[in-house]
Structures are given as structure tokens and as C-alpha cells.
């Protein structure tokens, strides 16, 4: 019982401790402006990770989201001047939904493993983003209505935070209480059993990929609003960061066991680390090294916990 509790809430403790350590090392992390900045950055990872939680719980992965993120910034960069901020976001969501459905169709109809399928579409989608913008920046300095997505407020709460809260409430509800959530968990824990028991496996998998793509479009909207630029080269390695957050949050790589709130906290933890290292003046490449190492540690823990659980049962 105690072990179980510790296992579920471990990540919260780690996040709190990390924040405390950085607060002592660089008190700047506590300033109001920095906290809003930190939460905005966390929102970008967290929202995409909410979608990824379903993918990994379902026993799959989506590696193409970094490219979808880049394509989102390009679509917004090109279309906001013509359609306005909300219209362009609607188009971007549509594009993301279609690309996600393509991923899902490739996985289910061509029967390619999700890893490899999304690895290929990762290359193709980034190609689309680069072709669409000709590899150049599409800037939005004259269209400041986009700034609402990071600078504006919804019901008095900064928009990115409100959006994250909304996404996670919906994600938790969907995961816990809807037939969709049950199907995802069923597919993830035992694909063959799910098929035999009549779960519509193909359509559920396609829905999962549409979900990862559209949540990534929401993250991309925040990113575009922050950068005021669309570029086909942004978001390299974004998929790794999102997958790290999901696994660190307690969603098991072997499928079937997800943890929506854990994902949120882990995304926050990763951002605290990045933000703290930044404030301490550590160069970008060292941060990448640190993130890679944290990823390895998270994976090793996950695998050790899994073995521990197997031995106990």
C-alpha cells in the first residue's frame, strides 16, 4: 500500500523538490513574470503530452508530432494574415486532424508498427512544412492578435494555463469515464484480447493518432504566439520531450497503464529543470545532455518498477 502510494505520488515529490532546489540556487525563478513564462513553456509540452498519454497507454507512439508542431507554426504563419488568428487555428486543427488520421490509417491499414510509421511521416510532414514556407520564416509581427494565445487572459486566468487546465480536465474525463478511454486501455494491455472482445481496434487507433496530432496543433499555436514566427525547422526533438514527460509521469511503456495527472506534473518538472538551468546560465547543449540523461534515468526507473511489479505478482 505504502509502496503503491509512493509509486503514484513520487513524481509530485520530485517536482516539488526540484523547484525548491532551484528556488534556493536562483531566486529569480520565483518572480511572477518567470512563473508565468515557466507555465507557458510547460503548457506547450503538457498539452501535446496529454495526447501522447493516450498513444502510449494504447501501446503505441507518435514520433511525427515534432514535424506536426513545425507545420502548425508554418500554417499559422502563412494564414493568420488572411484568416485572422481563430480562423487560422481552425485550419491548423483540420490539417493536424487529417495528418493524424493518415498516421492512423498507415498504422492500421498498411500494418506498420507505430514507431516506424510515424518515423517515416515525421520526415514527410517536415518536408511539407519546409515546402510550404520554402524553408523561410513566415513572420507575424504585424498580426498581434495571435499574441492573445500567450499574452491574453480567459476568465482572468492567463490563456495558456486556462487551455492546459481545460485540455487536462477533458483528457482525464475521457481517460477515466468514457468508452474511448476503456478501449485505449484495453488495446494497450492486451491487443489480442481487445480484438477478440469486439473492441473496434482500428478506429480507436486512428482516433488516438488524431488526438496526438490535434493536441500538438494546440501546443503549436502557443509556440507560434510566443515566437510570432512560422518555420519548418522548429520542434526538432519535441517528440522526445513529450514522450519523456509522459513516461516520467508514470504512463507505462508496455501499455495499458496511463497517468494523466502524472503527465502534467512531469511536463512541469521538465520545464522547471530547463528554466532553472537557463537561469543558471547553462548553455543549450548541456541542457540537451541533461534532458537526455534524465530521460535515461526515467526509463531505467520505469523498467525496474515494471520488473519489481512482475516479481511481486
Amino acid at each position, binding site marked *: 500500500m505504502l509502496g503503491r502510494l509512493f509509486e503514484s505520488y513520487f513524481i509530485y515529490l520530485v517536482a516539488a523538490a526540484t523547484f525548491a532546489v532551484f528556488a534556493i540556487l536562483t531566486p529569480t525563478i520565483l518572480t511572477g513574470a518567470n512563473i508565468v513564462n515557466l507555465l507557458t513553456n510547460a503548457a506547450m509540452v503538457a498539452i501535446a503530452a496529454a495526447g501522447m498519454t493516450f498513444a502510449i497507454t494504447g501501446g503505441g507512439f507518435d514520433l511525427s508530432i515534432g514535424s506536426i508542431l513545425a507545420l502548425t507554426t508554418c500554417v499559422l504563419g502563412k494564414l493568420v494574415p488572411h484568416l485572422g488568428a481563430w480562423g487560422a487555428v481552425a485550419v491548423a486543427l483540420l490539417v493536424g486532424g487529417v495528418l493524424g488520421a493518415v498516421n492512423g490509417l498507415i498504422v492500421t491499414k*498498411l500494418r506498420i508498427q507505430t*514507431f*516506424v510509421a510515424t518515423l517515416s511521416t515525421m*520526415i514527410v510532414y517536415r*518536408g511539407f512544412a519546409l*515546402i510550404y514556407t520554402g524553408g523561410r520564416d513566415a513572420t507575424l509581427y504585424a498580426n498581434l492578435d495571435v499574441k492573445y494565445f500567450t499574452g491574453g487572459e480567459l476568465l482572468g486566468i492567463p490563456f495558456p494555463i486556462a487551455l492546459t487546465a481545460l485540455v487536462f480536465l477533458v483528457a482525464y474525463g475521457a481517460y477515466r469515464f468514457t468508452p474511448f478511454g476503456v478501449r485505449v486501455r484495453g488495446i494497450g494491455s492486451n491487443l489480442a484480447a481487445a*480484438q477478440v472482445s469486439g473492441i473496434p481496434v482500428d478506429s480507436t487507433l486512428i482516433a488516438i493518432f488524431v488526438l496526438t496530432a490535434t493536441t500538438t496543433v494546440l501546443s503549436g499555436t502557443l509556440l507560434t504566439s510566443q515566437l510570432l514566427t512560422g518555420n519548418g525547422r522548429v520542434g526538432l526533438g519535441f517528440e522526445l520531450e513529450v514522450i519523456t514527460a509522459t513516461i516520467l509521469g508514470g504512463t507505462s511503456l508496455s501499455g495499458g497503464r496511463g497517468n494523466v495527472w502524472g503527465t502534467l506534473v512531469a511536463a512541469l518538472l521538465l520545464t522547471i529543470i530547463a528554466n532553472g538551468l537557463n537561469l543558471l546560465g547553462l548553455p543549450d547543449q548541456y541542457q540537451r545532455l541533461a534532458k537526455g540523461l534524465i530521460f*535515461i534515468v526515467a*526509463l531505467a526507473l520505469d523498467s525496474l518498477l515494471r520488473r519489481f511489479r512482475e516479481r511481486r505478482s
Partner: protein
Amino acid sequence: MATSRFSLRERGILIALALFWAVCAGTNTMFRDVSTYLSILRESSFVGVCAVGMTFCIISGDFDLSVGSMLSLLGIACVAIVGHTGLFLALVFVTLLGAGCGLINGALVALLRIPAFIATLAMYFIYRALAYIVTNGQPVQFQEPWFTEVGNGSLAGVPTPFLFLVALAAGATYVLRRTPFGRYVLAIGNSRRASEISGIRIARVRLAIFTLVGAFTGVAALLISSRMWSANSGMKIGYEFDVIAAVVLGGTSLSGGKGSVANTVVAAVFFASLNTAMNMFHVDSYMQRVVIGIVLLFAFSLTGIRSFVAERLRLRQESREAPKVAPGGESAAAP
């Protein structure tokens, strides 16, 4: 199903390459010149050498996504020391260093039991960051002719890197087909459970496979840095996809258990031909990515299409034999 030695399955990529060359030669005069083909062979070696090692990895049912970053790190090490140690020692050193990196990957996968895809994805970032940190983002160069000759020179008209590739591929084929280690690799790919029961020390074999991939990446790093006279922390991003694509296009099954080193080499030549042709026909460089991604998807789906056809044939046969039994439900790919 492939009982004949010359089945379409085993020679498919060779036929595809011959057809592709025929079409290119018919439509572009530059494809009627021997020097074009020699240059294709040279370019194919840089991917091919690493792909030979990766063939073992994919046959055993694993992947190594970190080879591109490892290549950058090893290339930097090679260029940095070759002036002091000479060519032979540099080759030995960079191969051993590669083997060491591979050993780390193998330890994560085989001992800590992290899925290979994820573990090597993390190492992909770590090796690249290390490459950047040791050079501070600056390229390292070494331009003495005795070094650059390895990647750019020819021996009796044949590009030197291709000679490396042929020698390594021949050795690897021997190891895969004629030694106990090769049989273990195939067995693990076929069924890990069965191999374990029959007494194969799986962890040790997988550790050896990843070490092997690292060593081959070391050789590739020497060839590529010699070809470019230099190395840097941003070189060959996406190299791992080229390598894996060559292995898979060569017919090595993604689900493990079968594959051929020779076909991997032919597939590497095919990709080099595709790149050369796209350049000759002035395909936009961004469009080239899309084309390669789609060729990849096609290659990856070959296994799926083949099993789909086989299943349909089986179902048809079954329904003919026992018409009253309803066919089984739709099944999806294992994610």
C-alpha cells in the same frame, strides 16, 4: 514460402535497382556514363558500412537510432587524432570507440531492458550534445592527402570506400550464415522466448550486436570524415533513417528473424542512385525528403502487404475447404 534460391523476395531489390538504372539511363544521358555509377557506389558506401552492422540489429528485432549522432562524435574524434596517430591507429581507435558507444547502448537495452527504440533515441540526443560540447560547435579539419585519399580515392578504378564496404559485407555475411553467433542473432529475432529456453544467453548476444553496430559506425565515421576532410557536431543529421531505410528496403524483416547483408548493400546502392537521380532531375531538396519518406513507408509496408495477401489467400482457401465457417475478424498491426 521462399523455397527457391532465386525467389522474387530475395532478389526483389536487385531487380528494382536494375529497372531503376534502366529507366534513368533511358531518360538521362549522364546515367550512360560509368563515372556516374562509380560515384553512386562511393556514396552508397557511407551509408552501407553502417547498414551492414544495422542488419544484425534489425534481424535480432532491435533498432539503433543513435548511429547518426554517434557518427558525428566518432568523426570528430577521428579527425582530431588522425594527425597524431596515423591512419591505421586512427581506424583502430575509432572502431574501438564506436564499439564502446555501442556497448553503452547495448547495456541500456539488454541489461536495463529499456526498449531499444527509446533507449537509442535518448542516446541520439546525448551523443549529439557531447559532440557539440567537445568541439564547442566548431568544425574540426584535417586535410593531409594521405587521409582524404581514403574517402575520395580509388583503387584500380573502384572507389576505396566501396572496397571497404564489400570487404565488411563479405565478412558479415560469413558471420551471419556460418558462425554460432550468426545463428543466435537469427534465433533471437525469430523468437526471443524460444531462444531463451534453448539456452542462448540473450543479453550477451544483444550486447554484442549493439557493440557491433557501434564498431561499424566507427568505420563509417572514418570514411565520411575522410571524404569531407572534416567533421562537426551538426553533420549527418538523419543518417540513422538512411541506414535503417537501406536495411529494410533490403528485405530484412522489421519483425526480426530474417535478412541478408548482401541485399542491404544493394539497397544502399539503390538509395544512392535515387539521390543521384533526384539531383540530376533537379528535384527540390525539400521535395527529396518527402520522396524518401514515401519510399520508406512503401518499404516498411512491404511486410504488411505480404502478410495481408498471404492471409487473404489462406482465408479463401479455408472458406473453400469449409464453407460454413465464418472468416476470422479483422486484425490490426501490433502497435
